[in-house]
């Protein structure tokens, strides 16, 4: 595979340096922007501070958590499959999470957000395992085939969801759930997103093992890494992050794909020192897209998934064409 992610060279770069500090400051500035921008005048109005606490702060925290989680998810999947074009939207994981959510809603109409989330996470886990099983069975001649199959798999799962939703008159709701948007993120609803913070921490701790597992079962076993366990752990992390984000926020298409790719284009493939950058850039892109969505047709909002879908598709195409030129 020509797009293999080369393994990390531990210690070749320090984890923290002034560039990272600068990047962090820039993202913080964006987040302050997110806190301040919106239809409601949080400083002028009487209940401004209350609204600030109920909507702006949760929304901004959600941006941070979802952006970081989904881009790290993409990175983990790319490491495990050694394929640059893999992420939750190109493997059907998101669609599985959606199907799980839908089925839970139908079986338990009054389900709490945690129950719904469990449904989504379990479905995402099964779907991702299915995709990995498929990848291990086939020998691939082209790395581009993987996302093609993954997207078709997603379409299959999506059509099942559509069928179920159509039978239960939930089709239009389905569209609303799936379209990722931070509009509805309020205090009392976004808190489950903190789960994905834990996912992020675990990824930081075991990232190198994902790289080794990505080199294949034999190599992993040779260097003393239990392949099965690492893949299982990776899948659980991906499913948790995707499931939770899908239920609370919705679909964030292409985020996990474009962020790790842009980072490694700029900085090369040094996993360990790239990780914080992947987080930062993920947060930055989601925040910028959300800010655009909030302001472009004020006082209405465009869901972040629309902007990400269009921008992400464009960036994805540029990435493919770049690879094509480099053979």
């Amino acid at each position: 595979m020509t797009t293999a992610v080369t393994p990390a060279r531990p210690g070749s770069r320090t984890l923290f340096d002034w560039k990272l500090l600068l990047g962090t400051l820039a993202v913080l500035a964006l987040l302050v922007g997110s806190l301040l921008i919106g239809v409601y005048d949080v400083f002028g109005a009487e209940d401004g501070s209350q609204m600030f606490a109920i909507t702006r702060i949760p929304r901004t925290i959600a941006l941070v958590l979802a952006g970081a989680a989904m881009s790290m998810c993409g990175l983990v999947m790319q490491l495990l499959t050694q394929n640059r074009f893999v992420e939750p939207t190109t493997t059907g994981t998101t669609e599985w999470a959606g199907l799980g959510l839908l089925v839970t809603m139908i079986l338990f109409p009054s389900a709490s957000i945690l129950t719904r989330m469990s449904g989504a996470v379990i479905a995402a886990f099964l779907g991702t395992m299915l995709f990995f099983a498929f990848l291990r069975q086939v020998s691939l001649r082209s790395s581009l085939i993987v996302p093609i199959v993954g997207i078709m798999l997603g379409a299959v799962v999506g059509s099942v969801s559509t069928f179920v939703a159509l039978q239960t008159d939930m089709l239009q709701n389905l569209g609303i759930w799936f379209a990722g948007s931070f509009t509805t993120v309020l205090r009392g609803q976004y808190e489950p997103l903190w789960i994905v913070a834990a996912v992020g921490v675990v990824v930081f701790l075991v990232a190198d093992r994902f790289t080794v597992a990505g080199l294949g079962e034999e190599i992993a076993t040779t260097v003393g890494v239990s392949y099965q366990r690492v893949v299982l752990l990776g899948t659980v992390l991906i499913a948790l992050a995707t499931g939770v984000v899908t239920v609370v926020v919705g679909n964030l298409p292409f985020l996990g794909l474009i962020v790790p790719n842009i980072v490694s284009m700029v900085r090369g493939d040094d996993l360990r020192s790239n990780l914080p950058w992947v987080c930062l850039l993920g947060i930055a892109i989601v925040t910028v897209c959300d800010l655009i969505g909030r302001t472009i047709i004020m006082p209405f909002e465009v869901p972040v998934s629309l902007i990400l879908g269009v921008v992400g598709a464009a960036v994805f195409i540029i990435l493919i064409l770049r690879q094509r030129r480099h053979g």
Partner: protein
Amino acid sequence: MAELTTAVRATPTPPRTVRTSAALPGTRRARRYWLVLIGLALLAAAFGIALVVWDNPMPVGTAGFWRIVALRSKNVLVMLIVAFCQAMATVAFQTVTTNRIVTPSILGFESLYVAVQTGAIYLLGATGLTMLTGVPQFIGQIVLMVGLAVALYGWLLSGKHGNLHVLLLIGIIIGAGLGSVSTFLQRLLTPSEFDLLTARLFGSISSADADYLPIAVPLAAGAGLLLWRRARRLNVMALGRDVTTGLGLNHRRELVVVLVLVAVLMATSTALVGPMTFLGFLVATLAYQFADTHDHRHVLPVAVLTGFVVLSGAYFVMKNLFYAQGVVSIIIELVGGVTFLVVILRKGRL
């Protein structure tokens, strides 16, 4: 070990009656093929006739009876066109891409169709749909879809780095981008407008307009005929780019011609009845099993008949047994989708 015996040079070849390279060597396989073909043809005819005359509420021979027959014949004809387009396009597409788990519908035809329909309703409300009905509009949609496909081919298959996988992936991604626009617009629709739209977004045989047939039939037949005349070259194309070139075919030219024909077939089918993502996949997969030969002159007829039997059979059963003809296309999509899952889990190589 068979190998050992063949390695002995002196083994005289036993006198053979006929040595032939026919697509169906041996009488047993030839008989099996023709039995399958005749069986499919009979089934197709049975379903076709049953759909027309079964459960006709009017007494036989009256004017009302014939009116219903005419109406239903239109539906059968539409099914025939859709089955023909999807089967021919998918088999040809899988051959030239040398990949049996892709379908041409992923190239963005359907997302474009959905985006056009959604956009029309969003901008113009319910009147938007009526504005999209009509022969010129039908032609317009086909031209738009074929135009997009040809533009993509021209861009991505030309030049030094022309690459088929890049083409496929970019087609899919453009589809995904269009999809997010459609999803957003759908959120803004009122529930009644959304219901109107839903009817358009699922392949629906009965919603096809009889006025479109004089355009759809020649388009499908013309593209189909051109593909049929290339059937022998398709046999070669299935062996991949290098072998095709080595055997003296201009691979890129053949590829572009076949892909344009595929685009015409898919656009005709989609503009006629709406998206049918996995029908083609299901039909092609079944047809390879049924025909059991590499020769497209044998595979294509089986595929078309299989497509018609699947479509008309599902329609007949759902209509007369379950009284749920509205969900026919969705059921087919589901079965096709499940087939897809089974195939990717069983396939050894891509």
